[in-house]
Every structure is written in structure tokens, then in C-alpha cells.
């Protein structure tokens, strides 16, 4: 007679099996609450933007986004976002390397200062910039104004405000990766004859590329969505310093058509960013 012996327990079997019945019910409840919460908070309002845009028809959509002032608003938004993200990428790389690889006096204070832009209200940031660069009462705005450089109510001020609010995003993505990798590969490259630029290009940059890409996408999304700080420093002049988000705000306030249509474009871009991020995420984990 052949006896069938019970096989060895599967190695990867979970130590505690999820209980049936009550456990399953609780899981279902938790999931429903989570879905409901996200639904009411995020999905429903955004869905209504879609619904309003569709209800107004394709003609209204085209009119709203192709109006000269709308086109100008999109262009200036793209300009500000690209310049601010470029500046913050270069600066963010430098700061991340400084924080991850060097110990210096005031390093902790510096580290704390970096987080201020995300915790302070953007309106305050805008007001602070006006205090410094304002053309009449600003701290050194008048001198800049005399030299023919206009910061406030012009593109430089809007770029400055956007840089300020997106400052830590790149840094905070890169620093943990740099810290985890340490200096081993850098030292090895040095012993193989690589100078500091070669080490940066051939070793450091490839090591942090996914974290950097993630930080850049995050900054871009944040830069395009910025409202408060930019509103204060821009003066919000239609056709000149009005960005896409400012235009949405103005049109909605005045009850004019076009707010939902432009909103939809912004939402679609944000979704594109999120898809981009989710495509980057697994690669970042793997490498």
C-alpha cells in the first residue's frame, strides 16, 4: 500500500493566513471607505470638469483653448515651467550632492530651510518676493528697476516664484539614492583614472537617473499648477503675465466661458505626468 505523505509546507506560505469571513468583510469595508474617500475628494470633482467640458461641446472647447489670450497663457505657462524646472534640476543636483556627500557647519539648518517652500503658503512666498524685488518699495527692486530689469509683474518674478515653490522636489528625490549608493563606485572610478566630471557623467548620473527623472516630472507638474505665488508677483495682466491657471481662476470668477475647457487641458497634462511617473517608478526600484 502506498501511503501519501503530506508534503513539506510551502516556503513562501504566509505565516498568518488571512482569516475568512470576518477578515474578508473588514477588508471589503476598508476598501470601500478608501474608494469612497478618493471618489468624493478627487474623482467626482474632476469628472464634473470633464462632464461640463463635454456638455459645452467640441466647438466651445476649441474656442476656449484657441483664443489668443488662452494661447498666450499656455505659452507663458510652458515658458515659466521649463525655465524653472531647468534651473531647479541643475541647482537640485548640486544641493543633493552637497547634502549627501559632505558634512559642513550648518548642514542641518540648510536641510530644514529646503523644506520651507513646501510648507509655507505660496501667497506668502509671492508677498515675500514683492518685498524684495518690488519696483517701487522693494528691498533692491528699485535699483534693478533703474538698471532696466523688471522682476515683479514680469517673467523673471514668475520664474523666481515657481522656482521657490518647486525647490525641494528634485533634491528630496535624489538625496536618498545618493546616500544609499555611497561613494564606493565613485572611489572605484577615481582609482581607474576618472576625473570628477567623468565620474559625474559616467557613474553618479546613471545611478540617480530615475530618481532625477521622477523629481523633474514632479517639479514640472507642480510648476504648471502653481497659482498663489505667481498670482501675487505676476499682476495677472491678460495677454501678458496671465498663466493658464490664473486664466482659469479669472474666467471662473467672472462667470465667463472657458474655465472648464482650460482646466481640462491642465488635468490631462497632470494625468500625463502621473502616467510618466508610474512608468518610471518600477524601473527606479529595479536599478
Amino acid at each position, binding site marked *: 500500500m502506498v501511503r501519501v505523505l503530506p508534503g513539506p509546507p510551502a516556503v513562501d506560505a504566509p505565516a498568518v493566513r488571512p482569516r475568512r469571513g470576518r477578515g474578508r468583510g473588514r477588508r471589503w469595508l476598508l476598501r470601500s471607505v478608501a474608494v469612497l474617500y478618493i471618489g468624493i475628494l478627487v474623482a467626482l470633482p474632476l469628472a464634473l470638469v470633464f462632464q461640463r467640458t463635454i456638455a459645452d461641446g467640441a466647438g466651445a472647447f476649441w474656442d476656449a483653448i484657441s483664443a489668443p489670450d488662452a494661447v498666450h497663457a499656455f505659452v507663458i505657462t510652458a515658458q515659466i515651467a521649463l525655465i524653472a524646472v531647468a534651473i531647479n534640476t541643475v541647482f537640485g543636483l548640486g544641493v543633493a550632492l552637497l547634502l549627501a556627500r559632505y558634512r559642513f557647519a550648518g548642514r542641518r539648518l540648510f536641510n530644514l530651510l529646503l523644506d520651507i517652500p513646501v510648507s509655507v503658503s505660496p501667497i506668502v512666498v509671492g508677498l515675500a518676493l514683492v518685498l524684495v524685488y518690488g519696483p517701487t518699495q522693494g528691498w533692491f527692486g528699485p535699483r534693478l528697476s533703474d538698471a532696466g530689469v523688471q522682476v515683479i509683474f514680469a517673467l523673471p518674478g514668475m520664474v523666481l516664484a515657481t522656482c521657490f515653490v518647486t525647490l525641494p522636489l528634485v533634491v528630496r528625490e535624489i538625496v536618498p539614492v545618493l546616500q544609499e549608493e555611497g561613494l564606493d563606485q565613485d572611489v572605484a572610478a*577615481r*582609482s581607474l*583614472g576618472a576625473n570628477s566630471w567623468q565620474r559625474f557623467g559616467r557613474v553618479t548620473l*546613471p545611478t540617480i537617473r530615475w530618481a532625477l527623472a521622477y523629481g523633474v516630472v514632479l517639479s514640472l507638474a507642480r510648476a504648471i499648477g502653481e497659482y498663489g505665488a505667481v498670482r501675487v508677483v505676476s499682476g495677472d495682466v491678460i495677454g501678458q503675465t496671465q498663466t493658464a491657471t490664473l486664466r482659469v481662476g479669472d474666467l471662473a470668477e467672472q462667470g465667463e466661458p472657458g474655465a472648464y475647457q482650460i482646466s481640462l487641458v491642465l488635468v490631462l497634462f497632470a494625468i500625463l505626468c502621473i502616467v510618466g511617473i508610474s512608468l518610471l517608478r518600477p524601473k527606479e526600484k529595479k536599478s
Partner: protein
Amino acid sequence: MGIEVRAVTKRFGDFTALSDVDLSVPSGELTALLGPSGGGKSTLLRIIGGLEDQDAGSIEIDGVDASRVPAQRRNVGFVFQHYAAFKHLTVFRNVAFGLEIRRRPKDEIRRRVGELLELVHLEQFADRLPSQLSGGQRQRMALARALATEPRVLLLDEPFGALDAQVRKELRDWLRRLHDEMHVTTLFVTHDREEALEVSDRLVVINAGRIEQVGSPTELYDKPANDFVMGFLGPVTQLDGRLVRPHDIDIFSEPAGGAVRSTVVRLQRIGFEVRAELDAGGSRPWVQLTRGQAESLGIETGRTVWLRAAAGASTLAAPLAEPIALATALAG
């Protein structure tokens, strides 16, 4: 020629890692730097490689003063304990790194990397990433990478420290054979005395920032300069006020000239080896015997025997403080 280290001192804050160290490493030899952790051996290696700056003293490599030459221009091959593989590059590109930096022509790189991968038996792994290799394979890749630029000196910092015992043994034999073929001046750091005794032509024992003794493995084992070297290179026990190796003690079943009367306290068998712990009045020496010796002498717990250091055995006067516990702890 080779490496000349002169009066090198290095401090980290209050801690003196190296104090006035002089060392000359002959060209073409495989030299081991052996010592306890924190003794300064890795610091010395990093200073020779230019990865650390000395506070005082000079380094000469092949007759050229390298004291202030940055690491990237010293032409020194470095192998690290944790491999330091370029994770984003294939095995081929890892090995080619130094040649690419030096802008060598493509076909020269392909030929040279091919040769090196063959040398380290990784030719079929050229297109893999380091994460797809085992620890031993990664370290062989790191060695090929260090050799690619034909360095004047090869420096290895605890190269087998992160590997398990079996692989460590294999790689050790392999490094010895590789060195016999290549004859590049090699300096390697280890805290494993067996590794150092087995692989090296010359041994440098470093402790607390100073060099204790330099010589061939046999010289150091047989004629240790002091109790530290003796204790670090092998087991030591104390008999009749002198330090002696436990396998250098003769046991007699009857009184013999100069032998100390003792009682067997404990017997322990470890494979082919028998360790007898004895009570010799003032001290408690232990003796290392083979199973055959123990059986023919008929040693058993409680028996009285007579002990004497074997003829020609190296002994040292025991220091006043009890050194045995310390020496055995360091050797272990």
C-alpha cells in the same frame, strides 16, 4: 623599485591611525598587510592608492614620488571589499571602464577586455549586469577591472572579506596562481591570518598604527619579534613562564629533564585534533596533539604527565600581565 613608504603619519581627529610608518614593498611580490581591525592597515593601503592623504611622510611608487599625485593619476589598481561594481554597466563595460577613460581605440579595448575576462573565467558573462553575478564572480570582475589599465601596483582591501568560507578559499588559491603568472606588485589587506600565511610572499603585521614585524610567513611564524606577532599568527599558550605554541610542547608519561609536572584537566576533540588542557601548578597550558599522539600516550582526564617545550620550538618570555586571553582572542 616597488613601493617605498617613508615616515607616514595619519590622524583622524584625536585618533592616530598610522604613526611614523616605514615600509618597502619589493617589486613583483605579493605582500599581505595583516593586523586587527582599526590597526591602520586599510588606511595605509588607501594612502598608497591616493584615496586618503597622509599628514606627514612620503610615498614612492617605482622610484617616482607619488605623495601628492591624485588617485586618478597614480595608475594603481584598487579592489574593494564590497566590489564597488558599476551597477548600471555590464561586466564588459565595467572591465573596459579604465580603458574608455584613457580613450583607447575600440578594437584594443575589445581585445584587452576579452583577454581579461578569459583570465578571470567570466568570458561567458560579458553581457550580464553585476547584480546577476555571485559575490565571487563580482570580485573577479573587479580584479579584471583593476588590471585592465596595467597598473604599476595592485592594491586589494580585504578582497575576500565579504565572501563565504568556501568561495574565499577558492579565490585565495586562484589569486596566488594569478599572481604567479602576472607578477604585478601586489599589496593586500587582511585580518585573516590563515589567508595571509597561505597567499603572501611577505607579511607585514600592523597593530595600533605601527608595523610590528615584516618578513616571510615562515619567518614570522617561527621567529615572532614579540608576543603580539606570536599571538596574532597562531595559537599561543604559557608554560613555565614562557610563551610557546601549543603544538610545540612535548608530553612525557614519566619525569624528563626540565619537564614540568602537570595534570590533565580536560580533553577536547576537534576532528583530527585533540586539545589537552592541563594544570601545571602555576599556569594552565594547553597542548595540541593529533589523535594518534593522544592515543599512543594514553592521555586521559586526571592523569599526571610531564611537559616541556619541544627542541627548536620558538618561545618568548611571557609578559607580566596575563597575555594568553588577549592573544587568543586576537588570533581567533
